[in-house]
């Protein structure tokens, strides 16, 4: 284990030392006292496991291609932007616009996520990205989704009372926000709980899971449960709904030629 202390260190210097350590062949790196430093793990390759203590700043793991990032706390916005491969494990909450254009790898979040998560995720050839969210999600979940797998679990739904000061919509904190999967034209979304078609974009169908789905879902959830010490049976106790696009060309009639 190679330790780096990020206390009061600016992002440029911090990321340079992480890159150096990876280049040197360090397999396990621990970054302590992180708070708000941007761009950690951006464009990083190889198989290192980097543990981050504290709240990393925006643009975590953009273009990342291989490493594993373990975030012990909450994380901020724009994580896994156009990520190619690797794993990100976030033990707390995460912010908006996660996995934008993500093409491969896995993003596991134990807590809640913000708006526009899994936006324009895409799979190509053998690559297929996966994002799994343990808590709730905001609006535009899976917006423009073109490929890969997006799973929302709502594990803490019952306790998710709106915070003090916030003025929630009727009915408290929803499992998932409005405009769900709007513009979706590829991939699959599994949601643990009920989905109101009124929340969804016009482009998606909501359906029950078949045996093949259950298998795919379990395969995806096994490593997630392992990351956070959850039991697969507990997670699978509640019913899931599947969202898939009804057309890969939802706007075929939009234009006049």
């Amino acid at each position, binding site marked *: 284990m190679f330790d780096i202390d990020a206390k009061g260190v600016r992002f440029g210097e911090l990321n340079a030392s992480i890159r150096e350590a990876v280049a040197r062949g360090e397999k396990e790196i621990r970054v302590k006292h992180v*708070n*708000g430093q941007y761009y950690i793990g951006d464009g990083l390759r190889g198989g290192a496991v980097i543990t981050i203590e*504290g709240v990393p700043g925006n643009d975590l793991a953009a273009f990342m291609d291989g490493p594993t990032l373990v975030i012990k706390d*909450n994380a901020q916005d724009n994580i896994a932007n156009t990520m190619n491969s690797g794993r990100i494990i976030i033990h707390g909450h995460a*912010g*908006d616009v996660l996995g934008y254009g993500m093409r491969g790898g896995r993003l596991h979040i134990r807590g809640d996520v*913000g708006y526009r998560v899994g936006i324009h995720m895409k799979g190509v050839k053998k690559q297929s990205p996966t994002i799994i969210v343990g808590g709730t999600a905001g*609006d535009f979940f899976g917006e423009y989704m073109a490929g890969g797998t997006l799973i929302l679990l709502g594990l803490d739904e019952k306790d998710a009372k709106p915070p003090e*000061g916030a003025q929630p919509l009727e009915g408290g904190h929803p499992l998932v926000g409005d405009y769900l999967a709007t513009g979706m034209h590829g991939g699959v979304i599994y949601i643990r709980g009920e989905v109101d078609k009124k929340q969804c974009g016009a482009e998606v169908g909501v359906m029950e899971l078949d045996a093949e789905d259950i298998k795919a879902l379990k395969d995806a959830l096994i490593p997630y449960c392992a990351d956070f010490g959850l039991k697969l049976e507990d997670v699978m106790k509640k019913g899931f709904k599947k969202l898939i696009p009804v057309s890969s060309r939802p706007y075929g009639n939009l234009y006049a030629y």
Partner: protein
Amino acid sequence: MNRDKRNAKFISPYIGVEPLQGASGPIGRNKNTQGGGRLQGAGFDFQKDISGCGLTGLISKDKKRLSGSHIVKSLCLMNDRGNGLGAGYAAYGIYPDFKDFYAFHVMYDDPSIRFTAEDLLKSNYHIEKIEEIPTSPVKAIPISPLLVRYFIKPLKEKLAGGIEEADFVVNTVMKINSEIDGAYVFSSGKNMGAFKGVGNPKDIADFFRIDEYEGYIWTAHTRFPTNTPGWWGGAHPFTLLDWSIVHNGEISSYGINKRYLEMYGYKLSLLTDTEVVAYLLDLLIRRHGLDIGAACTALAAPFWKNIDAMDGAQKEAVTALRLAYGSALLNGPFSILFGHSRGLVGINDRIKLRPLVAATKDAMVYMASEESAIREICPKPDRVWAPRAGEPVVVELKD
């Protein structure tokens, strides 16, 4: 008519370089090119500023006064969200000895202008105290406007015509800001003050000696202006009476918000879109009597789809707000913190295009563009959450 009332001294387009007298280079903020400022004829027609920025705020609900050093630390963590062309702070509860007086913070381009503004103030106000705002020399801020503060109260006879005291004060602010060249009132509330200028968060804090003030509400802002170089008055917070606004994003509806406010006598002279927010709050809350929740509903209204799904009375209420205040709707990406004498409010746009994170710890509530800015001064909050689009976080001081 719009006149350029700012001048070269207020701007620091190149830090440390004194602009030439009568310079007519490509830099200026003339609202029209026939403006009266020294940069007239610059040919740069300014419409509104665009702020890509970081903001942070905190409130002690039980009115415990905190040194400014906390907010400075929080803001400085987000240095990279700004570009050193503007930073500012607002604080409430900082003038307990003068809490019944309007605290005017005024920037003067030139000492001589001071007398024009003071003549106006003296003939309309009882002036309890005049002093220069204390500053410390900061290497990165070689030039600054003359900064003076006044603790004042309108003369009784001036209010004899039945004009509301607050309206009278607003009129004074509008008059100085739109009519006296080179003078700008950047703070006008009671027991509160704004401190702002061209520089990065740390330098501006050092310059204004922010850590020497103690307040129970603080907001702060670091700025990344993209349309023009920053000028001192263009930094956030924007204030009017006790409203103070820090804003991240762009008000794409600025054009109609401005024309709507002009219908009610507001003069938009500060060259930035954020200005409309301060005046809209003044209009909706102070003059029209809306409560803060209703005002937020008007400014970041729910979508019709959601309104249609509401029950009778709520639907009726929200529909009425949208119909009456359509021109006040703030459209475009924004997160905003607004402070006022009774509390702190955070809100972002209807589809959450700018970030806002909130946290609580005992009687403290924090809100910022990034969670790390909160964790910098509150490492272990009781609760952290991201407010949903268009849903305000309203925090009020305990009585």
